[in-house]
């Protein structure tokens, strides 16, 4: 098991955003977390990566207790993430966006006297290639199209060489065609790099298409988990989605 959480709790004022969550993620698994808006999905990610402090509970990653560690330490241990809202370095070129992360992975960030432009070129280009941005490496991150910025963000996350990658709505705001491309890209990366992946997604085609395992979060609690078929046929899950997002199943 690569990641285990024990009784995670996080409240904001009177609202319990994450309520007694126990996750168990196997190595190499492609797990997804679904749930209506406000179910606590992003909060859960923020707890796993140290972005928010826990109220109670523990997070175990590769057998080590990482509860309460700061984000940079957790990132160093091998948990990478991408964000729901675009989170890149807008005025650096696509190349530099990825290269900075490669430097960090190679522990070169403290190097004050070598020329950055001569270092880690091959590694950076390999990552840009794997996310399909090699031909746009000179373009400023902020000037890339939305879909390409999402790819770039994934590139930044991959550059740190994570064992576990958390993707927060990787296809958000994309056309169906782009979304299908990203889905293929995710599958390819997981296979090639032996990654374990947890992703939050609203697009049910993506979720049912690639997940090994789906966890359904509702009002901060995991109400059901299982294989795509089991989730599809579960009445409670259907009720939540039919109740709150009437066409979640049919139109997506």
């Amino acid at each position, binding site marked *: 098991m690569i990641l285990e959480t024990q009784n995670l709790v996080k409240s904001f004022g009177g609202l319990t955003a994450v309520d007694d969550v126990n996750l168990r993620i196997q190595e190499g698994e492609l797990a997804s977390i679904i749930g209506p808006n406000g179910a606590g999905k992003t909060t859960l990610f923020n707890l796993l*990566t140290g*972005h928010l402090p826990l109220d109670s509970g523990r997070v175990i990653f590769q057998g080590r207790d990482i509860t309460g560690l*700061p*984000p*940079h*330490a957790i*990132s*160093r241990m091998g948990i*990478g*993430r991408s*964000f729901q809202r675009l*989170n*890149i*370095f*807008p*005025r*650096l070129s696509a190349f*530099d*966006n990825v*290269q*900075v*992360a490669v*430097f*960090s*992975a190679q522990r*070169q*960030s*403290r*190097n*004050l*006297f*070598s*020329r*950055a*432009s001569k*270092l880690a070129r091959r590694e950076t280009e390999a990552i840009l290639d794997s996310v399909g941005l090699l031909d746009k490496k000179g373009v*400023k991150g*902020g*000037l890339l199209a939305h879909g390409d910025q999402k790819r770039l963000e994934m590139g*930044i*996350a991959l*550059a*740190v060489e994570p064992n576990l990658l958390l993707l927060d709505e990787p296809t958000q705001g994309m056309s169906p065609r782009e979304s299908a491309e990203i889905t293929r890209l995710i599958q390819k990366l997981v296979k090639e790099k032996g990654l374990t992946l947890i992703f939050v997604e609203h697009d049910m085609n993506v979720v049912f298409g690639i997940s090994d395992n789906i966890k359904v979060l509702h009002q901060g609690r995991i109400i059901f988990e299982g294989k795509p078929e089991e989730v599809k046929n579960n009445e409670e899950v259907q009720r939540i989605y039919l109740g709150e997002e009437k066409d979640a199943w049919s139109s997506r």
Partner: protein
Amino acid sequence: MKGLARAFHSHRLALRLALLVLLLILPFILKESWVSLANEMLIMALAGCALNIMLGYTGMVSFGPAGLYAVGAYATAILLTRYHSSFIIALIGAPILAGIAGVIVGWFCVRRSATYFALLTLAFSQIIWTIIFEWYDFTGGDNGIVSIPIPEFFFTISHCYYFTLAVVGACVLLLWTIIQSPFGKTLQAIRENPGRTEFIAIPLKRYQLAAFVLSSVFLGVAGSLYCVFSGSVFPDYAHWVKSTDMLVICLLGGFYNFTGPIVGSFVYILLSKIIAKQTMFWMFFLGAIIVFLVLFMRNGIVGFLADKFSPVTDPAPGSGKDGGGR
């Protein structure tokens, strides 16, 4: 315009060489008072570049660089007058002491970001100013320290100028190297998106502190050079007005370009001398210049020129819709 741009780029090396030659022969072609002005420009160029490590490259707006500049100036002055140390020690001591002051001040300041960071830097520079102003026995208080035993060699303005040119040149080259390094790239990533860097395993606060200390060290060098140049130090060096000078120098030249503060220093000091000679309302004109820059030339002179003369049609940072609003 395009042809001019191409000509400019193809003759870059020649232009740089010409500039270097000009700097080297300056004392032979200009009157002493102008050499002295050039000396001041060089020192402020270094201070501006040092501040710009934080401002332009790490995205940390500091209102208190003068405090650390003054630590450098007073370190040299006090080492020479009170401890009768050798000139070399007094020079090397300045960046070291400014760096130590930078560690202490920076440790507190990087705990907050944006406006709060800026206010903390202002507060600390005022604390440094107050210490200098009130500690008569040690710093000379508002009398400052005058007739500092600078080696006689520096009494000749051209000697002093060459010395300043060499030190500033070496420091600027060093800063340039650092900016081009993986560390420098990482600082720029922090400027662009500090929160994101933590998720690529960068301990953000530590890097911000490193930028702060680096900036302090070079501000210390600039302060020390000014002490050598003027032979005296005053509490004014730590005053927020001095910090404003440094900020305007960066703003004027453009803080997204490495050469911005250098050009800024040249133009600013020249303007201040010319305008101050003609009228008593220098501060009025200074205010007008700042308003103009912020409203119409946010990337400063160098940013503006780079926009006009760049052969690539890449929008300058901060001018596009993605940029600026920090």
